């Protein structure tokens, strides 16, 4: 917010903030670095979150985000406004890069970084109500996140796009380059898999909850 407030004080940056993605892209292609900065600050969060939700690694998500914008700098003319928005274009590029990286690194075992990410993820969950509810909630969200990451890629990307990124079916279809019906069927199947994965956790939590509360109140 401080950054936005600072750049908002500059009249030219204020103008850039109000400009559309296409205008910013055109100005960036003409060599305007401030347009690139404005475009990056506007779109980097969506790209980064998509990559993080898809791979679960902050380092990889940052790498993907950087590569996406470098590709935009070098091959920005590849973007066709008639085929979709710049947001979906960027997410589509991120998805392709991510799939390449995951395909390349599928034989490598995750290092401690993943555990650190998990802890950071748990810490990032906002607190609400009491500490017990927070713990239960954070635990369930973390388990849901792990369940999403455990989904097959074709279902994971649809769940991430439609449920976590809150894209419409049409936008998700643009990102994935497939039909809307395919998106719907994959989402249906992906959510069913998630429910299957989450069911034992919920049953376990349901069975353990009275004992915990009993110990707490004892």
């Amino acid at each position, binding site marked *: 917010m401080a950054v936005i407030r600072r750049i908002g004080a500059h009249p030219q940056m204020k103008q850039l903030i109000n400009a559309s993605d296409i205008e910013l892209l055109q100005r960036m292609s003409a060599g305007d670095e401030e347009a*690139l900065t404005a475009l990056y600050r506007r779109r*980097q969060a969506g*790209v980064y*979150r998509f990559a993080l939700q898809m791979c679960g690694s902050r380092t990889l998500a940052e790498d993907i985000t950087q590569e996406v914008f*470098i590709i935009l700098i070098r091959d920005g003319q590849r973007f066709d406004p008639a085929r979709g928005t710049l947001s979906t274009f960027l997410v589509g590029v991120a998805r392709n890069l991510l799939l390449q990286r995951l395909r390349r690194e599928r034989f490598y075992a995750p290092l401690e970084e993943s555990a650190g990410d998990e802890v950071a*993820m748990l810490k*990032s969950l*906002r607190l609400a109500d009491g500490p017990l509810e927070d713990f239960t909630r954070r635990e369930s969200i973390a388990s849901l996140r792990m369940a999403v990451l455990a989904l097959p890629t074709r279902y994971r990307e649809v769940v991430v796009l439609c449920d976590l990124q809150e894209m419409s079916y049409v936008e998700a279809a643009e990102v994935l380059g497939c039909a809307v019906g395919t998106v719907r069927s994959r989402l249906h199947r992906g959510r069913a898999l998630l*429910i299957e994965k989450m069911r034992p956790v919920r049953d376990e939590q349901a069975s353990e909850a009275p004992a915990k509360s009993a110990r707490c109140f004892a």
Partner: protein
Amino acid sequence: MNCQNFGSIVNDLARNQMMEAGAREQAQLHSLSCDLCAARLQEEETLTQGLRELTVSMCDERASVEIESRIAVAFREHLAASHSVAKASSSSASVGLARSSRRYWSYAAAAAILLTAALGLAANRLWWATSPPPEQVAESNGSSTPANPKALEKVSPSAHPVAEGMPVPEGVTIKPDSRAPRSRSPKYASAAKTLVATKSRNTVTVQSLNILAPTVEVTTGFIPIGYSNAANVQEGGQVVRLEMPRYAMARFGVPINEERYAEMVKADVWVGADGLARAIRFVQ
């Protein structure tokens, strides 16, 4: 609505997606009447709630500031590289233009030379084809070029009856035309000559022969002239063509038609290096 239809729209129902109002109402009514579908709808709504909480929990996630600075650096490098590429392409384009210009001028010069040569050759041939037969008075001691040795080999004085004591007509000297084109083959070597001859003080008919039109000619063999011998024949010389009255053939023992007594006949005269006629043959 049955359970199968309910299952097809339960996702949209749990996610509060846009759908037909009638279908939504029927699905809700079905979930009230079917426990299994109600449990499924409950699971879907729970999942939707959990996913939304996950989304909310990650809404503050952003790439680090270092990424922005790296991207800015990459942007500046890209700009510099594109500028250098543009300069290089413009300079290479100018160099290429100069090269192409030089090449163009060399091609143009070569084409001009070829065109000039072709025009000169055509004009030369046209001049030879259309120029009237030159009538020149030959000097008595004109220079002559040596004849083709192969043509000389064809001279065979013994092949025809020797007319002893048959001299060349008096006052006749023979000189080849210096402008006569050279024949390209021994076959037409004799025809390549233009002959200028004088007989006494009168000009004998001189004809320029077109060597480019290979007309079929019937010739007699070379008939040695009286004062020649084999040694003189080997010395070399020049074959020239001339026209002479037909009655002159009788002097060499060739039969003639008396009705065409006054007509002219072509003859090839082999002239030795000393300028004297050595042999003659008649051409039809």
